[in-house]
């Protein structure tokens, strides 16, 4: 079926919904999502959303900007970070007016708490900057936006998996995919397309991400010969529940939790004497793995402890109810009495689809904006997170740039007629789906996926080196070859998840290839990208964004400069 819209948004998380809501004030908008929109992974965001409201203590957007730039290990574009941090307070107030039920302080204002890497007066000490809704901030924002989208009349197409970007010449004019419930093709013919397709955590074995985080948006742009920016920067959150990878928010440490190694020592005092357990995530993840490598994991195993016992039962229930129930449900542990086993878990990708501040996708290092194509949220790279994102900065990124992208997509749509629809818009999907359904090869997606996750976890996670990255590159390449020989046992058309998972695997393998290639090319350590064979940051060579294209001849890399406006790079100490 062919649908016509002014703006079509791919993905229904907070970025997608905020963009849709903004654009829908001006034009006709559809949100297309492969899961029902209320199931998007934004609902899993726990701890908070950053803005220098100053409701608890003095704070300024310049301090927030400094922290974000320093947290990014100076790779974030400072003009973009300035926009983010300047517009953050009004973004929070707009959310509050839409109905987000923020937790309040005694004055009745939005309460704020400390969070990793957020400081007062340019690094002096921790500052209360995270606005929150207990530890279900993402869920609460999603629910409010979902309600608002329905009131304003955004059309939702749930459980539709997008497989192609459509172009009329250079102009992006829609997307096509299939309805997961029926396998029937769905074409969305539009004046503007916004990718808000989220991240790629499922490339790794242990992740806080949901099953839907399979790099779909990345594959869409790679297929259209658009590069991905800074893909070597993958964030591993320090505190995933051991064995599950389920996130325990930094809020747990903001409320008084501390990390302890196997001998009970509060080891973060050695790694970050000032901020300790509230240092940025890259630093804490490396510290935990270093402790484990030195034999100081708990009982000699590959985890450390998160000690929440000092917080007290009442405060745990009030401030961290979800986290407490996760620990209880999945480990059978009462966190007010026992230590929680934690280890780093793949959480977020700083890199993504290159965009300008209005969400326009940039197709090359010369900042050439592609007509009609926009990206926002985790799948985009503005870049405000650089080499390492601070906690609470992702949700504010979604709202600030969701609004900007919504406005610019709507403006783009208003000024134009619907470009012609390419003839093969529908047939390209039908062909892809039919071919895969009839594929009789001997490889199975579930097996190849597990191998990919092992390779990426063992060779391309927190600590990296040339030797292992080269091995990973070969192995990912072999897996891609084996994927050509895939077969499906399930030939059905109704909710065929074997089909969907095979398509997702293809997206993940392509993206994994880019991550490994980008990591191999960056011969320095910066933020979340740490090379054992190049342990220092090298600003002379490394202070630039990498752009990787997937061409018929293989990967191609180019670079573009970092915007530095206010803060000159200095050594990053906490």
């Amino acid at each position: 079926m062919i649908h016509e819209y002014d703006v079509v948004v791919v993905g229904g998380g907070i970025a997608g919904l905020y963009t849709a809501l903004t654009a829908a004030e001006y034009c006709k908008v559809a949100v297309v999502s492969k899961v029902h929109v209320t199931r998007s992974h934004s609902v899993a965001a726990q701890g908070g959303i950053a803005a220098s409201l100053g409701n608890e203590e003095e704070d300024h957007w310049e301090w927030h900007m400094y922290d974000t730039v320093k947290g990014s290990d100076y790779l974030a574009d400072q003009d973009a970070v300035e926009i983010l941090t300047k517009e953050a307070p009004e973004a929070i107030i707009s959310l509050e007016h839409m109905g987000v039920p923020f937790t309040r302080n005694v004055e009745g204002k939005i309460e704020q708490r400390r969070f990793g890497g957020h400081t007062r007066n340019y690094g002096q000490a921790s500052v209360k900057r995270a606005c929150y809704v207990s530890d279900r901030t993402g869920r609460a924002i999603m629910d409010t936006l979902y309600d608002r989208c329905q009131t304003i009349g955004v059309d939702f197409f749930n459980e539709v998996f997008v497989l192609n970007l459509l172009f009329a010449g250079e102009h992006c004019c829609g997307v096509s995919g299939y309805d997961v419930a029926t396998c029937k093709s769905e074409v969305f013919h539009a004046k503007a397309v916004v990718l808000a397709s989220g991240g790629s955590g499922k490339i790794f074995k242990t992740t806080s991400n949901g099953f839907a985080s399979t790099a779909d948006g990345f594959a869409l742009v790679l297929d259209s010969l658009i590069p991905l920016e800074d893909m070597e920067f993958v964030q591993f959150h320090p505190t995933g529940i051991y064995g599950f990878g389920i996130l325990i928010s930094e809020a747990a440490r903001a409320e008084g939790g501390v990390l302890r190694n196997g001998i009970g020592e509060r080891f973060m005092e050695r790694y970050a004497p000032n901020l300790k357990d509230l240092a940025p995530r890259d630093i804490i993840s490396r510290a935990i793995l270093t402790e484990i490598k030195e034999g100081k994991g708990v009982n000699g195993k590959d985890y450390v402890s998160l000690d929440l016992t000092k917080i007290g039962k009442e405060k745990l229930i009030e401030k961290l109810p979800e986290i407490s129930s996760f620990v209880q449900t999945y480990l059978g542990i009462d966190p007010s009495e026992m230590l929680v086993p934690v280890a780093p878990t793949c959480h977020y990708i700083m890199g993504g689809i290159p965009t300008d501040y209005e969400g326009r996708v940039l197709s090359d290092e010369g900042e050439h904006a592609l007509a009609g194509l926009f990206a926002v949220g985790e799948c985009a790279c503005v870049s405000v997170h650089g080499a390492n994102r601070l906690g609470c900065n992702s949700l504010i990124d979604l709202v600030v740039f969701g609004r900007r992208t919504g406005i610019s997509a709507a403006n783009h749509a208003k000024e134009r007629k619907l470009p012609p629809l390419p003839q093969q818009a529908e047939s390209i999907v039908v062909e892809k789906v039919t071919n895969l359904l009839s594929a009789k090869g001997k490889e199975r997606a579930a097996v190849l996926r597990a191998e990919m996750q092992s390779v990426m976890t063992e060779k391309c996670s927190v600590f990296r080196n040339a030797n292992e990255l080269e091995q990973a590159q070969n192995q990912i390449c072999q897996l891609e070859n084996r994927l050509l020989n895939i077969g499906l046992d399930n030939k059905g058309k109704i909710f065929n998840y074997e089909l969907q998972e095979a398509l997702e695997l293809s997206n993940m393998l392509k993206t994994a290839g880019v991550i490994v290639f980008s990591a191999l090319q960056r011969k320095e350590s910066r933020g979340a990208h740490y090379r054992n064979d190049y342990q220092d940051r090298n600003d002379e060579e490394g202070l630039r964004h990498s752009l990787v294209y997937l061409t018929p001849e293989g990967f191609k890399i180019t670079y573009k400069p970092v915007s530095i406006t206010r803060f000159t790079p200095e050594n990053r100490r906490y």
Partner: protein
Amino acid sequence: MKVYRFNPETDNEPHYDIFNVDANPYDRILDCLNKIRWEQDSSLAYRMSCAHGICGSDAVSINGIPSLACQKLIKDYDYKQELLIEPLKFFPITKDLIVDMEPFFKRIKSINQNQPSQTLDYSPEEERLQSIEERGKIDDAIKCILCGCCVAACPVILEQEQRFLGPAAILRAQKHIFDSRATDSVECMQVLEKPYGIWGCKSYYMCTVVCPKKIKVTEKILKTKKKIIQELHPKSEQS
């Protein structure tokens, strides 16, 4: 595990398949379903997303009780016995464990659509104040993850009146009606008074019993009823 199967492409009638799954006590029921799909039968259909009880995708009936497959572990059951996994009751079955959630989201939408929007102005100058106590009145309702377990357990919907609005939608309205910032709680209460609305609730407490987020759903419905009486029908309260 005994799993409900129905494929409308090939089956006239539903049936049950038995799968033997190697599992640890701390494996989720969802992990077991995944082992079946990835290792034994790739056609088994069920929804999943976050896998830790916050997105609401994987509500199914486990041994007859609506539950989230990712929130229940093997150890929570007597695993020497067969586990019975079925789709949620009430909803039309699409395939295997997948049901059509449209009747659920329609109910939620009927509440949302009737809320005149609070301001959408991007640049209001200040936040509105709300005391900790006022905010506390909606604390329970915001835990809802829209999984549908309560509707699939509601005796009114299952046995008496299929058109009943059901617990989740009333809870959604409660969140709005008791939000001190809302300017349209009266209108929202009027929506609840429409036919098959809040007065259909007979306080069976099944919604409260099955809620995966431990929301005191029935209590919130009763509080809402009380507020409706007080504010919309003050005379009937006196008599």
